[in-house]
């Protein structure tokens, strides 16, 4: 029987949550006994190869590409997990949500105290994904099944959740593992 598959991605995140996945340390050996990784930065598979049991999403949606990837995850994954504060509430990138997009770009590329931009242009290559009007938590874009808060969530939180999901048991994390920082 084929092993169930897991996919992971980091949208508008810092990869800190992925570092935390790696922090499960030697348990990753147990994990690969149980599952295969599909699309994930861990194995560098860029596109989905098939249907997955679990999709793990770090980061919120800051641009159109984030939305496309997230929708792709929703399409391919039976269970979608928002991993970390950015996926859940936008996190640090969402600090721009109280400022207009124009003002953000001007500050970042034109007016900021450390900006050196002699061209005076805001980067606008067609390859650059367009930004959204604000950073959206993942569950405001697609339906999300589970949330693991934390900045980042601890390796234990991630491990216990995966074990529960893979063994089809309810996720029942102890008090100390559900934290927002």
């Amino acid at each position: 029987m084929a092993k169930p598959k897991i996919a992971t991605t980091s949208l508008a995140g810092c990869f800190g949550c992925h570092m935390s996945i790696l922090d499960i340390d030697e348990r990753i050996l147990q994990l690969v006994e149980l599952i295969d990784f599909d699309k994930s930065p861990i194995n560098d598979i860029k596109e989905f190869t098939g249907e997955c049991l679990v999709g793990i999403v770090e980061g919120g949606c800051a641009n159109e590409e984030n939305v496309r990837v997230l929708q792709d995850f929703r399409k391919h994954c039976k269970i979608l997990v928002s991993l970390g504060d950015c996926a859940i509430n936008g996190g640090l990138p969402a600090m721009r949500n109280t400022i207009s997009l124009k003002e953000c770009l001007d500050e970042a590329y034109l007016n900021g105290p450390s900006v050196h931009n002699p061209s005076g242009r805001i980067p606008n290559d067609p390859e650059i994904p367009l930004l959204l009007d604000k950073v959206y938590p993942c569950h405001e874009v697609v339906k999300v099944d589970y949330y693991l808060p934390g900045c980042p969530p601890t390796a234990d939180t991630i491990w216990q959740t995966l074990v529960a999901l893979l063994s089809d048991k309810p996720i029942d994390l102890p008090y100390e593992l559900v934290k927002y920082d």
Partner: protein
Amino acid sequence: MSDNLETVVKTICTGFENDKTRMIDIVRELQECLGHVSDDAMDLIAEQVGTHRVEVESVVSFYAFFSKEQKGKITIRLCDDIIDRMFGFERIKQAFSDTLGISVGETTPDGLITLEVTPCIGMCDQAPAVMINDEIFTELSGDAAVEIVEQLRAGIPPERLRRRLGDGNNSNPLVSAAVSNNIRKFGEVIFAPLECGNALRKALSMSPNEVVRAVKTARLRGRGGAGFPTGMKWDFTRAAEGERKFVICNADEGEPGTFKDRVILTERPELLIEGMVIAGYAIGAQEGVIYLRGEYAYLRPFLEDTLQKARNMGMLGNDVMGHNGFNFDIRIQMGAGAYICGEETALISSCEGLRGDPKNRPPFPAQKGYLDCPTSVNNVETLCCVARIIDQGAGWFSQIGSKGSTGTKLLSIGGDIRRPGVYEVPFGMTMHDVLEMAGGTGAAAVQVGGPSGELIGPDMYDRIICYDDLATGGALMVFGPERNLLEVVEYFMDFFIEESCGYCTPCRVGNVLLKQRLVDIIHGQGEPSDLTYLEELGASVKATSRCGLGQTSPNPILSSLKNFRPLYQALVKEGQQFQPTFNIQNALSTAKDIAGRPSMHFAE
């Protein structure tokens, strides 16, 4: 800080004996005088009355009629009520806006005129209506709006603008308002002919206990909407300890769609005054306050005059009607544009010169109300009923109406009917009969009791107007089949968001969330589970809100979901792959404008 400002503030504050509990009056006068209450003015007021400037600011920023920013000499307030929207609000707004060359919320560059909108000003039977300073203009056309602006620009003050005066006391020189009474049905309690002083004379020949007993025997219940037994309220107030007690008449008629108290105040103020004096006698109060909503300021000179006449007749003052030792007088407290002040404890806060925040209960006003003294707050219509009960007898009164709901009820009926206006009917009429009476038998829906009440459809027109079925303060808004009911619901939610005091979490936040999801659904971005979302959120707001406003604020959504569910079901879509509330094109529109290129992932 100009010396002039200092003089003005000092004069005004001194006029109110530097009493900080008269803050609403002080700020109101300053606003009228200077067109705003500036930072410097707030400092000066605080210093003059001995309070902190942030306390003054908290009041100034609470009431819609006060402002920190400079307003024009004249403020035009368009009544933005759902009924007005049905009868030409947009047209009027456009006309004023175009003629003045400004948008709502702005002031003309010459500083003459500010244009604003305001919720229901109690003229639903003669919409569209506007307030110009304290003056009211009704049944306006676009041409009339243009003419008004021209006259104002020519230097004619609002009170001297050309107008056709209304019927009855609306033509009294002290009122001189272009307002119609539209009394369509005269009942035997409120609108029956009046012999001034009879009821009071009879009351004073009884003991206070006998007066309370008569009100109890008549089984009189509050007419404002909540329906609390009046006699019981008086018993509590009477029994409460305190040298000083108060009767407050709640004339802050703000529930959209309601205008019956306006007509009572215009045509039966003597009956109200008698009722208040009787209440004072019954509970042992020496002072009465009429809390008059800011929108009815045009009635104030007339009411002051009526009070003065009552004083001259000996109905107010020391030894009322020669009754040794019973002293009672009444003052008018003006409101300043806050629906929440119709809630009795918020009304008391406002009388005390504070923000219109409701108070915690207990203690109830009967024990600790205005200025911490035992206080009975009664509706205008209730107090009028009291006078009649004493005059005609409790038995006579309790024969009218139905068993649990004695007497008559004034209904304010507006909307899609042929004869909008005020109807005094005995309790116990079916909605069907009411609609027939008012010429609205084809109605698709009726909002009973204002936004905080219930929206009912034709299958419920056999329901009865009484406390045990369709309980209402009297507002009936009738909607014809061509009306979009969800737009009505959306308007009502906007109203509650605008009028929430913001004190408690569920009302302050919950209503914003409710409205947001409602709008999503209206825009086709809803799914069936959103109906449950609305119901659960609404239930939370109802259960956990602190006062009557919050506890009824989700009603527009909850009652339309209950009685008009197919309207929602037709809009929500099942089985959506992503979140329907997320719209990628909207989310990208700013970036597309800035970058000047289309999305690479999401074609339009």
